[in-house]
């Protein structure tokens, strides 16, 4: 009896967590390379291409370099808080992995908890402590300013982030991520009825992770490097690790909440959870592959955004968060409430689909005019 309990609550979760941990760390390390190569591609330059084939060994080289570098602790810093700074954001982002189902339930989830979503939100929002603590403990103007900005920003976008999920909960009626995914497989992706919530969630998640266009805490032209100015070696790597892990967690969340997670089904037809489970190990792998594909798409969008958008000003950032996103999110809750109350959820799917269609139509309506670059000769003789 004890042995069975031990297996169930200690050994299996640990094995699964380590599996998820290794996979996510591999993705984090790979993302570092992918991001730099992709940015290079978008900006018409090469990016890292020296270490190994197409610079692929950069994935291994970076961690080794972080380990071998000197861990500088500025003499004027608060030592304990300086140590806690990088640890605090790292721990919750690691813990979140055990709550996220990466595939069909029994196999790919370390700890199935009935309030998983709430716990994930609680854990991810604690990341702000480490950032503000690290910024303050460094005893540096730029760090303090970056930490404060980051705290204000993360805190501001936490509100629309949390409110946008309410609509999904109203439709799915559960905080269990597996149930939310199953509901979507049996109906349709939440992306359609909750299209407003999806956009709010997506923008807030970019802001939460301090990614461009919301990377004011790290605005290098104003703040050197923001809250991690004084950090070096492994402690700096922890901040980076926490940021990328949080990006992966948020990509997983948006996949689970709005894009049907590991399933690929509409109205219960297609690859639902039951279908995948009945296929055994193969089904598990297919589910995992579907999930990772959807997740990696959002990781790609993160990088795409970074290469595309200029940075906001701080007052614009706060305006967007407090004056636009919060009323929109509250309105979304009321509208969803009305639709659920009158039992016309199907109508919401069609409205969402129509909205998406309209957006797509608007984007692709007219071809983007090609900008012809001037040659050096034309520039010299333009008058």
């Amino acid at each position: 009896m004890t042995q069975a309990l031990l297996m169930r609550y200690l050994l299996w979760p640990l094995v699964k967590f380590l599996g998820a941990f290794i996979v996510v760390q591999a993705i984090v390390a790979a993302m570092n390379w992918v991001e730099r190569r992709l940015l290079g591609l978008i900006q018409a330059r090469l990016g890292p291409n020296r270490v190994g084939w197409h610079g692929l060994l950069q994935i291994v080289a970076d961690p080794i370099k972080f380990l071998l570098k000197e861990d500088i602790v500025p003499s004027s810093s608060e030592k304990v808080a300086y140590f806690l700074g990088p640890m605090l954001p790292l721990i919750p982002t690691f813990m979140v992995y055990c709550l996220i189902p990466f595939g069909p339930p029994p196999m790919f989830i370390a700890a199935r908890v009935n309030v998983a979503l709430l716990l994930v939100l609680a854990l991810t929002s604690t990341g702000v402590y480490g950032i503000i603590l690290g910024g303050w403990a460094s005893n540096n103007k730029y760090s303090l300013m970056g930490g404060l900005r980051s705290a204000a920003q993360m805190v501001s976008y936490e509100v629309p982030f949390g409110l946008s999920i309410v609509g999904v909960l109203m439709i799915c009626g559960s905080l269990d991520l597996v149930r939310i995914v199953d509901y979507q497989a049996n109906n349709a992706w939440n992306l359609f009825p909750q299209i407003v919530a999806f956009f709010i969630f997506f923008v807030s998640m970019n802001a939460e992770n301090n990614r461009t266009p919301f990377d004011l805490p790290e605005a290098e032209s104003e703040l050197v490097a923001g809250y991690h100015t004084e950090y070096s070696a492994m402690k700096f790597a922890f901040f980076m690790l926490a940021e990328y892990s949080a990006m992966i967690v948020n990509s997983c969340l948006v996949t689970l909440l709005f894009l049907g997670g590991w399933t690929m089904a509409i109205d219960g037809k297609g690859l639902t959870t039951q279908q995948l489970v009945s296929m055994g190990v193969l089904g598990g792998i297919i589910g995992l592959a579907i999930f990772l594909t959807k997740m990696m798409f959002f990781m790609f969008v993160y990088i795409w955004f970074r290469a595309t958008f200029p940075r906001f000003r701080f007052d614009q950032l706060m305006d967007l968060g407090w004056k636009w996103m919060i009323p929109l999110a509250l309105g979304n809750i009321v509208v969803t409430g009305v639709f659920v109350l009158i039992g016309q959820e199907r109508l919401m799917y069609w409205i969402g689909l129509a909205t998406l269609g309209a957006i797509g139509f608007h984007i692709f309506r007219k071809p983007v005019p090609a900008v012809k670059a001037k040659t050096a000769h034309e520039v010299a003789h333009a008058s």
Partner: protein
Amino acid sequence: MTTSFVPVLLLLIVAVGLGVVFLSLNWVIGRHQRTPSKLAPYESGVPLLDTNRKRVNVRFYQIAMLFILFDIEAAFLYPWAVIYRRATYGNAGMFLFGEMLLFIVLLAVGYAYVWKKKAFDWK
């Protein structure tokens, strides 16, 4: 089920352990060459002229306070949202919707007040 949270607690220990192990590893095999200028706070190469902990804008605290209000409100909406759908199948749907509407209207009044007081303006 409380027992389903046991793995989460376990993983807290694993996460802390991993962090400490990596940091100590870095401490052991990393370089140790301390110079006074290396340990000084970073100031773009010039010596520090005044204090590092300057006064900061009070709006940061204001935002933190507003966040607590609004985020608690979001947390209050969660249990309501989870049971809302099931309630609409019975007779309680209208009642629950009215309650939520009342809650959001009360919140909107506070929101409008805060907006009017220019707490969202960063000028």
